[in-house]
């Protein structure tokens, strides 16, 4: 038996390690300390090719992670990808390296390359939260909302204290028109991060989808109170219009216009409020102010033009 193990070790040292676990001499520990202190340049200076040649097992694996992490912190994403690629080539079943490489590729918009790596990671560790999160985001971007929701659910089982992950999941549910579940997910997010204006805004959309306009407006007010930008005010003006309160909607639109002059949605609300009063001239006047500028208001301008034409018939 011993002879067999010796023969195995001689024939394939890398594989033989696995019989006993990957060795570590702790040589990389001082470099890890530099990394923890947020000193990526020092980490890169310490991890010279000559030094890396002396490493083995977990030390070697950790060295590639530190290299990739440091290059990434310095904004050198392409070099970070190369580091992780080398690491993955040496340690093909290491989930951490696979996921790091995949996340970086995903962040750089290279989803076609990232997706197979995430899939490899979950083949090794089926409930790896970050890998499922990555897949959820890729599927969401491509339009596979059901699959995205499923990946988010697995990711949340592992990362259930991540408030923004609950929000991302809720957004997918809103797109799938699963409003009640989205509502619940957003309440989990708010329980973790009560002062998140984004969560309040999304919850407002979930409640409005369930025809709870009073609740939706409360949430928009909460978001505005927590510093949400003009977008939340804009949503409030439109929701008030939908709730059959054109005068209040008009007042909310005026607030938006103070912050964002020429805002297409606010002018639309004013025009609709004028129409509700029976004042077609005022409505046309508001609609004529909607102009597409620098990529903004493109659709609003088209809609305003179409409605103006209809009103002047």
């Amino acid at each position: 038996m011993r002879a067999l193990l010796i023969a195995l070790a001689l024939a394939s040292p890398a594989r033989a390690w696995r019989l006993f676990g990957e060795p570590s001499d702790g040589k990389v520990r001082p470099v890890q300390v530099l990394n923890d202190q947020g000193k990526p340049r020092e980490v890169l200076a310490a991890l010279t090719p000559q030094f890396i040649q002396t490493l083995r097992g977990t030390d070697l694996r950790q060295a590639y992670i530190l290299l990739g992490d440091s290059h990434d912190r310095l904004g050198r994403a392409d070099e970070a990808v190369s580091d992780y690629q080398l690491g993955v080539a040496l340690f093909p079943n290491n989930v951490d390296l696979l996921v790091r490489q995949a996340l970086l590729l995903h962040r750089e918009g290279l989803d076609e390359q990232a997706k197979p790596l995430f899939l490899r990671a979950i083949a090794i560790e089926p409930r790896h939260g970050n890998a499922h999160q990555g897949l959820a985001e890729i599927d969401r971007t491509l339009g596979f909302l059901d699959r995205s929701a499923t990946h988010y659910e697995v990711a949340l089982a592992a990362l259930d204290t991540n408030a923004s992950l609950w929000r991302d999941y809720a957004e997918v549910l809103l797109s799938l028109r699963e409003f009640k579940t989205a509502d619940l997910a957003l309440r989990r997010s708010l329980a973790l991060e009560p002062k998140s204006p984004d969560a309040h805004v999304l919850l407002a959309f979930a409640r409005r989808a369930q025809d709870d306009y009073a609740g939706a407006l409360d949430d928009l007010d909460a978001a505005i109170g927590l510093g949400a930008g003009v977008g939340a005010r804009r949503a409030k003006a439109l929701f008030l219009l939908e709730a059959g309160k054109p005068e209040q909607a008009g007042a909310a639109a005026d607030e938006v216009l103070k912050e964002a002059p020429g805002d297409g949605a606010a002018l639309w609300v004013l025009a609709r409020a004028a129409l509700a009063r029976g004042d077609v001239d005022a409505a046309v006047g508001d609609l004529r102010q909607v102009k597409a500028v620098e990529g903004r208001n493109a659709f609003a301008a088209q809609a305003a033009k179409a409605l103006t034409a209809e009103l002047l018939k």
Partner: protein
Amino acid sequence: MTRRLVLALSALLAALPAAAAPDLSADALLRDHLWREVRTASPDRRPKVGLVLSAGSLRGTAHVGVITVLENAGFPVDVVAGTSMGAVVGAMYAGGLTVNQLWENALAVKIDSGNDLSARRLISLVLFDSLLSSEKTELTVRKTIGGKTFDQMKKPFACVSMDVYTGEAIIFRDGDVATAVRASMNLPGIFAPLEYRHRYLVDGGVVDYIPVDAARLLGAEWTLASVTENDYTAVRPKSVLDSLEQVIDIRGSFLSREQRKQANYLIEPAVGTIGMFEDARIPEAIEKGVIAAARRLDGAEQSLILASLPKLAPAWQGGAK
């Protein structure tokens, strides 16, 4: 160490693009607001919406992906028209199959499951000039939606075939659906013309590749066409059948140029390189349908909103909501 790794991964994830705040721009919010109104409006307050599914043999399974995205978005579809594979998918959708059932049926398609395209039959076709039967298409549709007639469909439906003697496009809107779908997906040169209602019928893709006209006949005022054309520049025919399909497709595509202009909105899944017999690529075709439709969804909503404004506006005037 593990805790540090999780924290580092979380930092990497935090920088990812998909974890963005909701889009609250003027355009996005106004579209969302008006789309809600269009989607929930009674049918008389918006144009009648026609979904048009083009021909395209196995590439046409991409229509299933397009329908998936439309259904998820709650996109109103009032009538459905299809040609060839578009007729098969359209019949199943208009017949009431759910999106999941459409996926199951599409993924189960084999080149010899809906047609008589077994190897033995193909040899017979080549050696003895003996055309095959498309009866299996009819049986598949009948098994899937039952023996429905057009007036029993969940949504009004039409499909197109061609009279091989006169070259006329024949639009079916009544009678037995499965037979009409068989006639619509009846590739000339491979399958024997179907004798039905005193006509000899072959695949409608030859004359009506994108059947916008059929949707209009059903009353559609605004049409969204899912088009799955061949990419002739990328595909080199490998067999007699490939060549035949390509010629038919090219002819159909030339004729469809005008139909493209008649459709109000186009979604074109990138399935041009998927060949007639590549059933292994059906999952890819469906996925490309999802991707293409997801990318074009906002535009489709905007187009339908703008077309709906003349019908929506009267209710907004003088104290109306």
